[in-house]
């Protein structure tokens, strides 16, 4: 008996300790007193948390993932680059002229632009970089749009002339591709650009370190050093934020943000500038059947998804275009398929699946917003009779097998634009695109795309791009969800973060507030 009472007492004591520990959040000693943090403020450096490692190759012309581009944006520049309003401004080029009926682009290189190794940028470097992207010896050119290039030549030491086969309104946007040193062959492991930050080191699955480039031609970075730390586990990421190991982190869910103390963090809100959807593999039955895809579109309740993932925030989309593309975005497509589970069931039965079917949604485990979305979507699809399992895989596996290998049934991910053209969003659904991981194959769509890139009139081109979006919606290419709400947590005493209309995180303007 005595033993039992004692056991009970001990158990109660343990539970008590734990519970009181959890309820005591308000008595936090000052997180700002954290040693690492004080050190970082003193050294004018920050730690940025990212949820996914970069690809094994850091080559700016090869890297395909949004996460890699987000980091490399700080290291590289093109002849032109986007500003935070989405307009193209001159970067490595000082100025440019478009002549010959829109077929010839002449770029005047800015004086005194240096690569991080101190070498001055000249026409040879630009010609080399463009040719590298246009090189089709490996099958397809690294940048598909560059297949339109007829000739690249250096007119003189500081002038480059690019001639394209036919006038193309989007072409300039693609000249945001990184300019790299002529003949430099270590791009995969040691990036070398002209951006405000220079690459220092990388440790796979741990961190990437960049430092201020002192000889930058422009304003230059406010910070001296940035360490990107990789936390592939959502919990570890939140712990690190809460504990004070990270100063800045974007792409958080509202549940993650809710755990942070607003005394130490300011929460900035934006949209992620991507299209989140349940992307379907059109080569995997039964998604080759348009009637099935259409039925599933009616089964998705986008508002509920936003409620769970971001506390109701986010912007619903109805096709492969996000609202920040004000020129192309079509609000009328958003509610093309209104949530109606009964209709979904009905259509499924008509399509020959009265009892539903088995379906696996693959999702990269490091991306909490997508994982949470998958959980909600799965539940909604189960409600119309499907047997849905969710397969969480590591980011690298997702990239290799789902994206590159196209070996999946359905997956949830966000697709972004590498530049501010509609083409960057829509080209991937043409049947021959190397990025067409959904295997969407529609000759009518391909024809429209060919017409769009051949168009010389901006209004006409925009109209075609809109038709393409409409076609994606009407053929129920994917189960479109939303442009996610992007929650960014940043230290209360930091400032200067600018949002871009594309998926990048510009750190050059970020700084500590100093009294």
């Amino acid at each position, binding site marked *: 008996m005595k033993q039992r009472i004692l056991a009970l007492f001990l158990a109660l004591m343990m539970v008590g300790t*734990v*519970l009181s520990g*959890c309820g005591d959040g308000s008595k936090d000693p000052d997180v700002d007193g954290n040693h690492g943090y004080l050190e970082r403020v003193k050294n004018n450096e920050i730690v940025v948390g990212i949820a996914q490692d970069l690809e094994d190759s850091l080559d700016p012309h090869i890297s395909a993932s949004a996460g890699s581009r987000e980091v490399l944006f700080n290291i590289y520049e093109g002849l032109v680059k986007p500003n935070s309003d989405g307009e193209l401004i001159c970067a490595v080029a000082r100025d440019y002229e478009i002549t010959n009926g829109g077929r010839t682009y002449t770029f005047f290189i800015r004086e005194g632009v240096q690569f991080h190794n101190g070498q001055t940028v000249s026409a040879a470097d630009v010609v080399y970089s463009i040719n590298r992207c246009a090189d089709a010896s490996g099958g397809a050119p690294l940048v598909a749009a560059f297949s339109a290039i007829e000739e690249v030549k250096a007119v003189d030491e500081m002038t480059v002339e690019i001639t394209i086969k036919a006038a193309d309104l989007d072409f300039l946007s693609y000249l945001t591709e990184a300019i790299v040193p002529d003949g430099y062959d270590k791009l995969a492991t040691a990036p070398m650009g002209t951006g405000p930050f220079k690459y220092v080191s990388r440790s796979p699955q741990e961190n990437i370190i960049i430092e201020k480039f002192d000889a930058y031609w422009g304003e230059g970075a406010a910070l001296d050093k940035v360490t990107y730390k990789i936390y592939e586990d959502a*919990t570890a990421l939140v712990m690190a934020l*809460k504990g004070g190991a990270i100063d800045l982190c974007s792409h958080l869910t509202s549940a993650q943000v809710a*755990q942070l103390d607003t005394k130490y963090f300011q929460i900035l809100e934006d949209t992620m500038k991507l299209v989140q959807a349940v992307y379907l593999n059109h080569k995997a039955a039964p998604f080759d059947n348009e009637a099935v895809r259409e039925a599933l579109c009616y089964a998705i309740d986008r508002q509920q998804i936003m409620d769970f993932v971001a506390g109701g925030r986010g912007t619903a989309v109805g096709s492969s275009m996000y609202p920040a593309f004000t020129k192309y975005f079509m609000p009328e497509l958003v509610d093309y398929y209104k949530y109606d589970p009964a209709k979904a069931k009905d259509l499924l039965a008509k399509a020959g699946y009265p009892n539903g079917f088995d379906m696996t949604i693959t999702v990269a485990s490091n991306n*909490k917003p997508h994982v949470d979305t998958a959980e*909600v979507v799965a539940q909604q699809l189960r409600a119309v009779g499907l047997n849905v399992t969710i397969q*969480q895989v590591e980011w690298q596996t997702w990239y290799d097998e789902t994206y590159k290998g196209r070996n999946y049934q359905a997956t949830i991910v966000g697709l972004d634009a590498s530049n501010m053209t509609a083409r960057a969003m829509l080209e991937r659904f043409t049947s021959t695109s190397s990025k067409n991981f959904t295997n969407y194959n529609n000759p009518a769509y391909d024809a429209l795309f060919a017409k769009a890139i051949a168009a010389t009139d901006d209004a006409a081109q925009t109209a075609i791009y809109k038709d393409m979006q409409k076609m994606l919606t009407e053929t129920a290419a994917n189960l479109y969800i939303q442009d996610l709400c992007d929650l960014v947590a940043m230290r209360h005493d930091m400032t200067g973060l600018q949002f871009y209309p594309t998926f990048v995180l510009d750190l050059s303007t970020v700084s500590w507030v100093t009294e």
Partner: protein
Amino acid sequence: MLKGNRYLQIGLAITGVVTVLAVLGLFWTPYDPSAMNSAEMYMAPSLRHIFGTDNFGRDVFSRVMKGISTTYLISLCTVAMGAAVGVIVGALTGYFGGIVDDILMRVNDAVTAFPSILLALVFISLLGFGKYNVILALGVAFVPSYARVVRSEFARHREMNYVKSARLMGATDRRIMFVHILPNTRAVILPTLVIGFNNAVLAEASLSYLGIGVRSPDVSLGYMLSESQSYMATAPWYVLCTGATIVLLILGFSLLGEGLQQGRR
């Protein structure tokens, strides 16, 4: 055996409660464990939801019940599989001895050099994720440890008088092994099975915690723990209730195992 054996008494009591929850969880839970409700997110424990609700407004108690069922079932299957193969291998090698025994035991030693969780990890990496692969991986991983115990028991009994006399009376080897010896080894094998069950619970929880065990819509305790950990600050009851359930499950069986061993003495 039960009388005066505290371990056995408490162990049985805890295990009983957990087992009832597990069996019940197969057929009935207070709420649908996967039904989401945006109006009831992050609710603290109350009479309505005795373990509270999670980030999707799902009832944690219902999920815990479902989780126990899954964890329990996986562990049972694992133990059954490991024991069945282990007993056969152990019996054959222990009883016959010889060169086959030597080789198998050497291989066995080598395999047991891999901690079982690592072994399971390797199997999972070969087989893929999911409930059935977890069972298979853990089952295979546990075979050597059972085989070892059974083998040493059989080797010990082989030389005993009752076996010798049975042999003289013309009983076949098969009959001696499984009718005469096996029942006599139960005092040793039973606690091993119970401890094995605990290891299986722990291993399954670890695998699912790492995200390579069961997959949604299956719910296991380890999976829930990894889920709930992200919400420790906003919904501490989720992680605590789940964790406490795992502790209870393991505690019950370890006391039971302890009790069985004491009862033998």
